[in-house]
């Protein structure tokens, strides 16, 4: 879905990996946080592309909006990945965590490697787009229907073994995947940033519901302190 977003990108873009907080219908109180896939400044309206999965009533409503419909959207919210356009990154996306990595790929102008994972071939979305934006694209599926048969962390290991020049591993996906990717990156001494997910309220850092347990015992908040964290900051044992 492409949003014509006024000056949203001009005024609030910080880095790839931010999210928009979308009001989904009248009967639902809470907004839905959705990762930005790609975004661009444009005239007269900036463009923000979101790719989301229909998981419940809210996202179902959103998916049914006709072209030209107006939405109530807060954003761009949160902090994205700390990265440089000239950097060399290993981008790892799992399932519905794949779309935000495309924005990272675009940001680095074709120099990154992408590893895309999912349960089966049909869960590997946007593969063609990644091929246009990356030096290399690898895939892994749990059932072996596409690419490596198994989890993405095996491919992360293979890449980090073969190429010592990665500046960082950047990952978005389910928590167990993030934990495994973070472990491999740590083993190779490569910095790793992860985009975390949690049930969210206000989306701006005031209500404190989207708590993420940190390694130092504190609890930070996904909407304001994240959604992207250094993997070493996160307490993976909870």
């Amino acid at each position, binding site marked *: 879905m492409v949003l014509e977003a006024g000056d949203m990108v001009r005024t609030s873009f910080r880095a790839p990996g931010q999210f928009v907080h979308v009001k989904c219908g009248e*009967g639902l*109180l809470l907004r839905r946080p959705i990762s930005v896939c790609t975004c661009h400044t444009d005239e007269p309206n900036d463009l923000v592309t979101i790719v989301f999965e229909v998981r419940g009533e809210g996202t179902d409503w959103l998916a049914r909006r006709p072209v030209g419909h107006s939405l109530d959207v807060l954003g761009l919210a949160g902090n994205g990945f700390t990265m440089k356009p000239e950097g060399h990154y290993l981008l790892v996306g799992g399932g519905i965590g794949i779309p935000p990595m495309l924005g990272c790929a675009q940001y680095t102008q074709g120099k990154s490697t992408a590893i895309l994972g999912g349960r089966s071939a049909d869960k590997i979305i946007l593969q063609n787009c990644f091929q246009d934006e990356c030096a290399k694209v690898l895939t892994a599926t749990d059932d072996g229907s596409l690419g490596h048969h198994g989890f993405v962390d095996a491919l992360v290991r293979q890449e980090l073994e073969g190429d010592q020049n990665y500046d960082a591993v950047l990952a978005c996906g389910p928590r167990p995947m993030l934990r495994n990717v973070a472990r491999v990156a740590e083993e190779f001494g490569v910095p790793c940033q992860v985009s975390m997910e*949690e049930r969210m309220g206000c989306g701006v*850092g005031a209500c*404190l519901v989207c*708590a993420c347990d940190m390694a130092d015992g504190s609890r930070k908040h996904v909407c304001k302190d994240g959604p992207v964290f250094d993997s070493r900051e996160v307490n993976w044992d909870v």
Partner: protein
Amino acid sequence: MSNVDMRVTLAGMTMKNPVVVASGTFGFGREYSQFFDLSELGGICAKGLTLLPREGNPAPRIAETPMGILNSVGLQNPGVDAFIAEELPFLRQYDVKVIANISGNTPEEYGVMCEKLAGAGVDMIEVNISCPNVKAGGLAYGTRPELAAEVTEMAKSHAGNVPVMVKLSPNVTDITEIARAVEAAGADAVSLINTIRGMRIDVNTRRPILKMNTGGLSGPAVLPVAVRMVWEVSQAVKVPVLGMGGVSKGEDAAQLMLAGASAVAVGTALFADPFAPIKVRDGLEAIAARQGLEAVSGLTGGVCPW
């Protein structure tokens, strides 16, 4: 806009309008100051404070329910000293009444916090005896009249000239009993309602959505409960009432005022719309103007029961 006098007075504290933001929904104001000038508000009930910093409960801390939400944040906050040093100076840049909200594990803790906050010059102290999401203190103080009175006395005796407002729990058989007890113990005002305890279960995993299993319900779903309780309490006590619970538009606020509230707080509505408090204020003013009132305070207690 209109000629309606929007000023209201709550326990001697005059606000430019009756709209306050509810504790726990507005942080310490920094986040929402990106959306509107905080001086537009009548008052700000700051995030609930404890004597020492708290990290709160594990996530998930929120679940959506029909026209409401359940939360179990568990009083995550930086502690009263950090509030005074870092947050109060920020809030003081604005022309808005600052109401500090406190929770203690013991009556003595309430006393210590009141002393610190009164010394720091907050405009009012809201004593939370009704948080459903913490083990010690919290709700236990709010459901037993003698304990509620003890905490109130302790707060009053350490708050100097700063008015003390006690936040009441709806999780009781008779809220007027607690209201009378805290009034007798010296409370200058009462605020109500805090959240109603609730639970939501994922039928596939058979797990409660909230990690703490239960949480506090807020949002439009609780508005009629709030209106009823404000109505009961305002007849039972003489001290003014700050009404809250499910307010998302001017009409909701007007209902609470007609039921007896002198001012109203907006909370959960902020999560759907960051501008909700401003819209509530404007909606309230429009209603007062339409009804030909000179002052919005004319709504307070104006219900005509059958």
